[in-house]
């Protein structure tokens, strides 16, 4: 890694890269802070802008958007009691009560410091571990890869409480959308209806922006926009945090960091789950659990450290295996592929400079986020007061412009609207979007590796007789049935008692 440092440094000090890093971070924080938007949406909307950029510049810009979005999510949770994204749900439970007690400044300072701690140190650990994981991945054949992709898809189902069928249905829709176009290896046209625009498959931007962004904006409008909230600006002066405060929560911080890193590393999981697990561990491990839910500092530290530590965790399988840790890393894998960077074990040999640039960028952006948030803390209430009618009309234009520049024709804009309709119908039917995103990104790799496996050894039993793929297949099957198995075990335990 050390040999790449001169290259990394030369990239980071380039004026354009610096400018895009700052702009990306600021935009990411705004997208993260405003409930209804997210860092994922920011990455999705601005991804087409990177098509004409150098790979290194694109990486820096997209990561700045992502990290800014992840780190900004706590702002809405603290000041409004509404999470900026799923990764900051648990932050609301103590962040907002603390703000209501007149300690908004302290709550925000904890959020900022916790976000920095989680992101910065997880990026360093990720950078150190990723190549080792990649070396291990060299030993994996197509069967193991297929099993790993399946595991990533099914792990999402394990956490979809009460709507396993809907989560699985969303995954199936994602798989079907990903199979449009010529099939890998055999080049058989699938679901193309002799339409030349479909031969190359459905574009990632077209499908995901339609389903994820346009439909979300239209549904939100259908439900009725909220009036800009009244946010108190009291207690926002000064940093609001002392070393003593940090020292008191050190055990909680370390535990939450490890939880976030571990959950982020698991394929298919991410910050959405890590913040909830860390919060519950912090509450269980606290000497004063009764304070949780009423503005306890530990209740902000835990979810914020964990959801940001998941970033470095998620980057390890992303870089070393080409497997996304969550929906944003799935998008990043797609975006990097467009720039000729195919994530996976070979990436360290072919583009090691860019991979390490990614990890260092995340660490640098974490520092930048902390600085920007500390300086701009008193303006956070104004971000939350941006009226929805201005914001969403501009975002809809950006969505359509993205679809156009992605393909260079208006047909894809029309297709995006079709997928917006699909997204609206999915929302009405209660189908979650995250499994679809993961399935859409993972299916091409999964199918290609599986067919390669069958070309080498034409037998299904390989899945289960090879130790690594066998273990992963068993876990994948357990994940599929876990929403059924878990209540059965709970019932059995109850009846025994």
């Amino acid at each position, binding site marked *: 890694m050390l040999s790449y440092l001169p290259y990394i440094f030369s990239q980071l000090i380039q004026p354009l890269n610096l400018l895009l890093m700052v702009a990306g971070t600021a935009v990411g924080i705004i997208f993260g802070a405003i409930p209804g938007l997210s860092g994922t949406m920011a990455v999705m909307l601005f991804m087409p*802008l990177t098509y*004409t*950029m150098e790979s290194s510049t694109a990486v820096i810009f997209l990561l700045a958007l992502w990290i800014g979005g992840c780190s900004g999510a706590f702002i809405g949770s603290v000041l409004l009691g509404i999470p900026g994204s799923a990764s900051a749900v648990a932050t609301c439970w103590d962040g907002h009560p603390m703000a209501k007690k007149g300690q908004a400044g302290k709550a925000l300072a904890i959020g900022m410091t916790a976000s920095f701690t989680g992101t910065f140190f997880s990026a360093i650990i990720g950078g150190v571990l990723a190549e080792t994981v990649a070396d291990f991945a060299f030993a994996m054949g197509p069967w193991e890869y297929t099993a790993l992709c399946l595991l990533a898809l099914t792990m999402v189902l394990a956490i979809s409480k009460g709507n*396993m*069928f*809907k989560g*699985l*249905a969303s*995954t*199936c*829709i994602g*798989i*079907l959308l990903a*199979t449009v176009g010529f*099939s890998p290896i*055999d080049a*058989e046209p*699938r*679901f193309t209806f002799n339409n030349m625009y479909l031969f190359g498959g459905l574009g990632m931007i077209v499908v995901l922006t339609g389903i994820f962004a*346009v439909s979300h904006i*239209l*549904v939100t*409008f259908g*439900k*009725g*926009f909220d*009036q800009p909230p009244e946010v108190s600006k009291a207690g926002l002066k000064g940093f609001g945090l002392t070393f003593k405060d940090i020292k008191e929560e050190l055990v909680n911080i370390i535990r939450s960091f490890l939880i976030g890193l571990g959950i982020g590393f698991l394929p298919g999981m991410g910050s959405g789950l890590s913040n909830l697990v860390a919060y519950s561990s912090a509450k269980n491990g606290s000497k004063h659990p009764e304070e949780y839910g009423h503005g306890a500092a530990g209740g902000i530290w835990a979810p914020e450290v964990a959801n940001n530590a998941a970033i470095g965790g998620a980057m390890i399988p992303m870089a070393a295996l080409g497997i996304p840790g969550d929906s944003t890393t799935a998008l990043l894998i797609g975006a990097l592929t467009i720039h000729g960077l195919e994530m996976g074990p070979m990436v360290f040999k072919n583009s090691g400079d860019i991979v390490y640039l990614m990890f260092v960028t995340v660490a640098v952006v974490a520092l930048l986020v902390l600085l920007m948030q500390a300086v701009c803390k008193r303006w956070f209430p104004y971000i939350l007061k941006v*009226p*929805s*009618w201005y914001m*969403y*009309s*501009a975002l*809809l*234009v*950006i969505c*359509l*412009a993205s679809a*156009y*520049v992605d393909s*260079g024709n*208006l047909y894809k*804009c*029309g297709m995006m*609207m079709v997928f*917006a*309709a699909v997204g*609206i119908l999915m*929302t*009405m*039917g*209660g*189908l979650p979007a995250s499994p679809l995103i993961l399935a859409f990104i993972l*299916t091409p790799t*999964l*199918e290609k590796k599986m*067919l390669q496996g*069958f*070309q080498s050894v*034409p037998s299904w039993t390989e899945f289960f007789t090879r130790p690594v793929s066998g273990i992963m297949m068993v876990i994948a099957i357990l994940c599929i049935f876990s929403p059924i198995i878990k209540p059965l075990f709970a019932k059995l335990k109850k009846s025994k008692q």
Partner: protein
Amino acid sequence: MKVKRDQITGLVLVVLGIIFFVLISQFNKPLTAEYPGPKLMPGIAALGLVICGLGVFFNGCRQKEPDKAIMSKAGLLRMLVSFAALWLYILGLKYLGFLIVTPFLVYGLTTYFAVQSKAQTKLWVRIVFAIGVTLVIWFMYVQLFDMELPIGELFE
């Protein structure tokens, strides 16, 4: 008995799964035990849709409490009007191009969103915003990042 939302969702998923099965059966390359070919992945997904559809349908049958409304009829209409406006915008892009049509869409949507949300906005602010957004996006994509936005068939 009132039909539940999950029952409709389930049936739609089952029908979708069956349609995809029919389409998959028309692929040329056969699915064999030695080599699954291009049919396997979409086949699994189509089968999954049917199974999940049935699961969602039966969950809906067991559901006792009435469905919570996702949005009112007025909300649905609002959504459809915005959806139609975006289609019109794409049509406008085709003939008139980005710079001419976008201010009208942004102004129209901002006004419609604001009026429907019972918000007070000033006319000149909406006009300046519509023109500003158009120019900023144009500058960002075309000038800054060297990309193309539609210029309209009438001006080509």
